[in-house]
């Protein structure tokens, strides 16, 4: 596929993604911090219903041979340490790298002047330290691009069916609890 149509497609899909995040309320600091304070479960509801819908669709398309999936490679040190550092930043800023784009579109200047500047600095800092990290700590506990079905040596659907039920049940319980 040529580069120009890739870029146009990216832009159009991005407009839809930003639109949906804003309509869901996820471009707001108050909603995101409300989730992290366990008071408002909007963000978890959006994420779990996206994962549930997406998971079934992408695996059906994989089964039909329409798409190839690309699970990310990782290691314990990469995903646990990076994940926790990310989490601290997530709570301080109140936006994540995706919702901050939406927040900027919503007119939130703390996202534009503060958060965006910070993310660019943090990314540049990582780039500077990358050679040392890559050959050192990031390799510890390496497990590659393994998925749960491969780890458990079962078919995709043996994981998807019970996982879908579990995610559905979690959403039901959240509603029941009035959250």
């Amino acid at each position: 596929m040529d580069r120009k149509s890739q870029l146009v497609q990216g832009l159009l899909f991005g407009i839809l993604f930003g639109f949906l995040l804003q309509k869901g309320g996820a471009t707001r600091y108050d909603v995101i911090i409300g989730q992290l304070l366990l008071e408002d479960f909007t963000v978890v509801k959006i994420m779990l219903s996206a994962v549930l819908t997406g998971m079934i669709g992408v695996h059906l398309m994989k089964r039909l041979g329409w798409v190839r999936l690309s699970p990310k490679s990782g290691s314990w040190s990469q995903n646990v340490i990076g994940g926790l550092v990310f989490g601290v930043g997530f709570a301080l800023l109140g936006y994540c790298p995706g919702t901050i784009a939406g927040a900027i579109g919503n007119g939130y200047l703390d996202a534009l002047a503060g958060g965006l500047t910070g993310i660019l600095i943090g990314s540049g800092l990582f780039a500077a330290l990358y050679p040392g990290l890559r050959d050192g700590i990031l390799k510890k506990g390496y497990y590659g691009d393994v998925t749960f079905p491969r780890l458990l040596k079962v078919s995709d659907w043996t994981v998807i069916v019970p996982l879908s039920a579990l995610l559905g049940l979690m959403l039901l319980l959240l509603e029941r609890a009035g959250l």
Partner: protein
Amino acid sequence: MDWLTAWPWSPYAAGMGIGVLSWLTLYVSGHPIGCSTSFARTAGMIEKLFRGRKVEAKPFYREIRPVVDWQWMLVAGMVFGAFLSAQLSGDFRWQWIPTRWEAAFGDDRLTRIGVSVAGGVLLGFGSRWAGGCTSGHGISGTMQLALSSWVSACCFFIGGIVTALLIFGIAA
């Protein structure tokens, strides 16, 4: 056409919409939804402005080239999509201090911006360390059942919840 101006939508409607969007990006463009790598590319583009082409030779930027790609346009589109939705919903406004922040920490702009920069640095650094963010790991990776993404997504929220409870606990 009331749904275009209604706000907020049910989180389930927004979430299922994002789920369907993730089918389309994969089927049409061959890419799962992700965001954070684009900020790293942008950091490289900015570095290039100051230090020239030798930036491209850095090991990190040899892997994550400082160029505009599909995902970069996705993130740019998100700014516009959210703007469009906010306008249609009557929710667009210029705002320095979020309501919830002001209630806990006051209305000093410099404090809010300082903490936002600090949070952003950790987000940028952490997402590169973990290899993704709330979109790439949290949504696209978990739906592909990747171990790396489930571990990351859990840690995003563990780190986020503990930190949020701590800073809001101190303020209270």
